[in-house]
């Protein structure tokens, strides 16, 4: 296992859960977004926004006042499927839709927005990738059995510290997470709603997803 012996000093943790935006069981079937004062869940489960995250409260005054640049590090994410929903099967034949890229919008990024194709900076940062979902098991992370209609989750423990972005301090910020097929480089997966047994069914059956971040000050 990768093991970095560096010891973090000041740190804060942020958890983003779609459950905080809506607990509606059918949220993932909706063809329109759900939007409220907490955040937004995009139509057909293609991502979510968590609004007005108060960085001052999150970090505490001591860390907020002491630093100006922070590192947002993705440490864990988990997707929950609802086994009671039919059609939760995940297609192992359609590679395009089981190999996704995860993107983040919202923070006042310090860097990392460079777009290779255009040579310019964009407002979105490629955060990580989600691949080989067909090997996910209900037993435990790292298992090898196939995901089936009764399976419940996609889960990962991130063991690299590279999946992070740097951002400038702002009192409040929105954070948006979106997904798109890795092979096509799209930032969203909503264009093709006709896909069956692909990622759309996968996300449709989802009850929630949760992401956990470290926020680490840059000295």
């Amino acid at each position: 296992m990768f093991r970095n012996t560096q010891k973090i000093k000041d740190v804060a943790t942020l958890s983003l859960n779609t459950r905080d935006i809506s607990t509606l069981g059918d949220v993932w079937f909706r063809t329109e977004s759900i939007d409220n004062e907490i955040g937004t869940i995009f139509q057909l489960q293609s991502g979510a926004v968590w609004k007005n995250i108060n960085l001052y409260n999150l970090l505490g005054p001591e860390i907020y006042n002491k630093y100006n640049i922070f590192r947002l590090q993705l440490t864990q994410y988990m997707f929950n499927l609802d086994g009671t929903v039919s059609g939760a099967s995940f297609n192992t034949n359609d590679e395009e839709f089981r190999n996704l890229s995860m993107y983040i919008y919202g923070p006042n990024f310090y860097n990392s927005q460079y777009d290779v194709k255009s040579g310019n900076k964009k407002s979105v940062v490629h955060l990580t990738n989600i691949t080989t979902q067909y090997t996910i098991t209900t037993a435990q992370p790292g298992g090898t059995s196939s995901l089936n209609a009764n399976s419940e989750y996609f889960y990962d423990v991130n063991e690299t510290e590279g999946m992070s972005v740097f951002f400038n301090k702002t009192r409040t910020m929105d954070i948006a997470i979106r997904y798109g097929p890795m092979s096509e480089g799209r930032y969203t997966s909503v264009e093709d709603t006709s896909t069956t047994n692909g990622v759309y069914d996968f996300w449709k059956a989802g009850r929630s997803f949760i992401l956990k971040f470290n926020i680490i000050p840059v000295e």
Partner: protein
Amino acid sequence: MISDSYHISFVLKHSDISTNTAAISASNETGSYWTAGKQYTSYRINMKALCGEMWDKYDTFVLRLNQVSYGEQGGTWALSNRDLLMIVRMSGLNFVNSTYDIKSGNNTGRYNLCLLNIANSNSGTINYGSNISVCNFKKSSDYVDIVLECIRCSDGLPVQYNANVMPHMVYSFDIYPIE
């Protein structure tokens, strides 16, 4: 620079409270657990004894989770698969931050220690990278009640177990000071 000499191991395990894995609840001078076994566990900890001179010398510390482990007891313990997908919340320490609640915009005193997926009928060990689950806490009273609470990711409700087969769990941490 932080010296490795100021670096202590800290392990919380259900077997310190009771070795009866079939008990729905247990309580003694070490702590307690209840709600069908392991959903809510409280440990009474003497931080001064745990940390030694480090407790007197420093004011702020890092708590780092290294490993969660559980042993097979036979049978399936979760009532549904969603009871296996949980957030483990910790409270009791004087957290500097990391307790932010998205819905309210305020801090709660409860820290999301980790997202945890446990197997329903097998043993398991989850090793965490060195900086996957870390938080800061400040010195408070010498005696604290550290509570670990398992809630479902999908709806925030307590996980539900068949008590007589739910395995005892072990949480391994380390603690080091910030100079």
